[in-house]
Structure formats: C-alpha cells, structure tokens
C-alpha cells in the first residue's frame, strides 16, 4: 500500500570547479564510499524507508556506452536487503569527464542512454529524479560561474537550461520504456526574489528573476513561458523548433514536483540591484503555492536543512508544519525530506572551493553519531507515520 514518503538523502553533488581541475565529490568527502553500508543502516535507524540517492555518474558512465556498476551493485543490493527504497538522482550537479559540462551538445542524448542503462540494470527501482535542481544546475554552472563550465553569460545559462530540460525529458522517456510504472520526482530549488523598494528597475529585475526560476520546469512540463522570457530564450540561442518540441511533449501524470527549501532561497534585490540573501520571509508554504499554481502536480518537500545544528530540530518542525498547512489547503504533498543523512562538506561556500569545511546539517555527523535533529525527525515520523495520502495521489496507490 502506498504511504506518505518520509525521506532523507545522501548528499551526492559532484560538480567540477577551478576550470575542471577539481571534482568536489560529496560521496567521497563525507566518507560514503567507505561507510556506505553503515549509512544505509542509519536510514533505518531513524525510522525512514525512503532515501534520495545519487549514484556517482562520473565513476559509472566512464565513456560512451561504457558503464562501471561495481559500486552501485553493492549499494542497491544492500538497500533491497534492508528495505530502503531509493529515489534515484541520476544527475546531481555534475557530468562525466568525457562530457565535460552542461554546454556539451551531446549531453541530453547521453543522459538518456545512461538512464536507460540504469533502469535496465536496476529494474526494481521505481522512483527517479532525472536531473536534480535544473535551475540551480544551470545558474551555478553558466550564469554565476561557480561550477562545471563556469560561464557568466545569459547564452551559457540558456544553453545549460535547454540541455538539462531536454536531458530530463529524454531520461524520463527512456526509463518509462524500460519500466512503465516508474515515478519521477523533479526536484527543484524553490526560489523567490523580492524587490527592496518601488524602483521600476529593481521591480523589473525581481520580476524577471521570478520568471527565470521557472524556465527549466516550464520546458519540462510544457508550460508556455511569458512573452519576454520567450524572447530572452530565442535571443540567447534557443531554436524556435526546439521550444516547440518542448511544448509539444506531454510528460504525463507520473511526474511529481519536488520543492526544496533553504534559508537562502528567498532573496532581496537591493537598491544597488544586487541580490542578497533574505532569510525565511514567506517560507515554504508561500513559495510552494506559487509553483503549485503554475504546474498543478503532486508535490514533495524534497530538501531542507539549516546550518545551525542547535536550531535544526526547530527548523524541522517549522518545515513540517508548512507541509501540514498546505495539505490542509488542498495541495497534494506526498513526501517530506530532511536533507541530508550526513553532514556535508563546503556547502557553506556553495562547493566553490575544496576547503573541507564541515557543514553540520546532517541527521548524523561524519563520525556517524546522531545529531539532535535525528531524534526529532524519528519522533516526528513515529507520530505522523500514518499521515494519509490526499485525493489525487492515486498515482502512488497504483504503484
């Protein structure tokens, strides 16, 4: 029987930095390659069944049509054995070396091939996130110049967005060919830009950013973009035919919209026109409602945490109460995720440098000792384990 999905995730980001000289592989820096079995056991220790898990694509997909499954075979077998259900992140901010970065023309088709090979090998896996946080992937790689191609241009951003959106479509198509009952969770970072003041230029900038956050999802879900955004896409290299191709696709009901939320997701455009972190102004409920009204899909809260380990239990409960309230208002939320199982490395600086700073956001620290938030989450899950699925969530029932 289907159930509300309480989940965590094993942080698996693996972008390259410094002109491709470094790969900041979170599975490596958090010790997961060494302690993978213990990590899977910890998921059960908190009372959880679902885990967002990203196999290391840069180690698996070593060349065109060449795959090394030696690590993932062990991990997924252990998950089956221990009753852990993976929500598989196939692309999490990084691509294999031979594909270089998100500007590569062959990326969408290559990712489609990877998804097909993965689904064929692990045919029991049901949940997939084809490309995690498409907007963040494109923004950090091609607009903010931090990861992978490290470009700072609108053309680069549009190219990366086109590629990740097309990759998602092709990956979902290929997986459905192998496993028609697969379910997709398109996890995206919730973003919101607030203008500081009634300055027309500042308001225009905030308004554009609030449209730009939707572009990748619009392409994926075939939702027409606003006129000025359409012009922006065409001016920056998107062929008209490709846009029409996106709009002609019907992704179907099998895609759940995942909404991630962190303190830094809400931003202020200040009087100088610069973007500043705003902290939690409106919160997950309000931002998620904006996404829900646009896409009208099942929703899952797919990532949250806070950098203050002492504050984390309070943050957990605040996020959960947001979920409960929005469910009461009729939005079909089917899952909730504390991200991640373990502390992370260098996320306090957005993985921009390989410094080795511990970011204490995990349910467990890197010694695999539980933090207070692990106890709080276990308690929460025990109380709400029988949280009912809402009307409209029959997709999960059928699965």
């Amino acid at each position: 029987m289907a159930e509300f999905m309480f989940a965590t995730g094993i942080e698996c980001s693996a972008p390259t930095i410094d002109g491709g000289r470094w790969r900041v592989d979170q599975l490596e820096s958090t010790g997961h390659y060494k302690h993978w079995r213990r990590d899977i056991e910890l998921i059960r220790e908190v009372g959880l069944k679902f885990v967002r898990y990203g196999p290391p694509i840069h180690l698996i997909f070593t060349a065109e049509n060449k795959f090394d499954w030696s690590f993932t075979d062990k991990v997924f077998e252990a998950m089956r054995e221990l009753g852990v259900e993976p929500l598989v992140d196939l692309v999490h901010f990084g691509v294999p070396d031979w594909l270089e970065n998100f500007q590569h023309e062959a990326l969408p088709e290559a990712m489609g091939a990877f998804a097909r090979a993965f689904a064929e090998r692990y045919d029991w896996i049901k949940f997939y996130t084809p490309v995690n946080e498409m907007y963040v992937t494109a923004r950090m790689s091609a607009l903010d110049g931090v990861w992978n191609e490290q470009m700072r241009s609108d053309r680069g951003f549009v190219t990366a967005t086109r590629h990740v959106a097309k990759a998602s479509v092709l990956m979902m198509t290929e997986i459905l060919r192998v496993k028609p009952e697969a379910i997709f969770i398109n996890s995206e970072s919730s973003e919101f830009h607030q203008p500081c003041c009634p300055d027309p230029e500042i308001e225009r900038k905030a308004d554009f950013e609030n449209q730009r956050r939707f572009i990748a999802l619009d392409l994926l879900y075939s939702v027409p973009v606003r006129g000025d955004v359409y012009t922006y896409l065409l001016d920056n290299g998107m062929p008209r035919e490709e846009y029409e191709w996106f709009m002609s696709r019907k992704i179907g009901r099998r895609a759940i919209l995942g909404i991630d939320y962190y303190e830094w997701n809400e931003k202020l455009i200040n009087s100088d026109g610069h973007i500043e972190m705003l902290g939690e102004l409106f919160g997950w409920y309000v931002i998620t409602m904006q996404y829900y009204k646009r896409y009208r899909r099942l929703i899952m809260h797919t990532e949250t945490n806070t950098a203050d380990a002492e504050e984390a239990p309070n943050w957990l409960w605040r996020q959960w109460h947001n979920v409960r309230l929005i469910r009461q208002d009729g939005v079909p939320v089917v899952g909730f995720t504390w991200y991640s199982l373990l502390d992370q490395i260098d996320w306090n600086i957005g993985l921009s440098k390989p410094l080795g700073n511990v970011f204490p956001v995990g349910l467990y620290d890197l010694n695999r000792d539980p933090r207070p938030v692990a106890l709080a989450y276990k308690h929460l899950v025990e109380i709400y384990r029988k949280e009912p699925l809402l009307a409209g969530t029959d997709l999960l029932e059928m699965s």
Partner: protein
Amino acid sequence: MAKDISFMQYMRAHGNTAGPTQRPLLTGAISGLLAFVPYEAVLRLSGGRASIAAGFDINMWTSTAINMVVMVLAGMIYAAIFKRAANDCRGGWIFGASYGFVLWMIAPITMWQLLGSRELAVGTAAMGLFGAHVLFGLALGTVFPWIHFLIQSRLSNINDQRMQMGQSEQGGK
C-alpha cells in the same frame, strides 16, 4: 555587520555539542581511567612518581590514588571541551596528544611553579613527567571514540523513552 556571538554559541551552531545518544562525561571518565595505566607506568619507570610523592610529602600509593582521580576528572574535562569532535576515530589521537601537552603545561609546569617550594623533578624524572602527560593524552584521545561507541545509547531507545514520558508533538524540539 557580523553578529556578536560568543565562542560557545559559535561552537554550538557549528554542531559541536554532544548528540542525543552520547554520554560524553561517562566516556571521558572511563577513558581517563584507562589512559591512566600507561601514564602511571611511565611515571614509575622514569622516577616521576617518586618525585611527585616527595614533592607533596606523601607516599607513592597515596600519590597514585590522588593522581588517578585527577586524571579521571581530566578525561571528563576533555570530553566537555572536545565534545562531538572527541568521537573521531581518525583525529582523536591528535586531539588527545595536544590535550596531554596542555595538561603538562598546566600541572607540572605552571601550577607547581606557583604552589611548590622546590623543583618537582629533574633529569629522567622530569622527562618522564612530560612523556607521561603526552602519553596520557594520546591514550585518552585514542580510546575515547571506541569507549563512546560501546556505551552510547541507541537512537531508538532514547526516542521510546521520550515517547513514554508523554512528551508533546513538539517534544522533538
């Protein structure tokens, strides 16, 4: 403008406080007791123990007993200072050795100079005092993670207890 926060607030925010399953003081006490064994051996072999006993005008066994209590307390203080970091199997030995060095700086060097009327130890005995303190710290830092692993509670047990205590839904806070 940067927030004005204390060091301890900073450390708490960075996740250094002990977790819900941990018993840091008990772990520190047991580890301190275990680390006392090589510490005492070095002091006995080097003549350091005899120097301490003579310095305080007490017999060797009384000196050993008092010192053992002090070192158990030192283990608990180590746990209170290093908290979650003390559980690190890879880094524990170096935290511990550093702590042992600081203990040597504080006790035989600083405190004795303030309180004593004559030198505590010279020659081999003095070297033994130094070596014993560093070795104590090294042993303390090395065994601490393993003792912690053995005696920490299970997450499930703690939660069951909390549930039985009838805590509210917000009890997770």
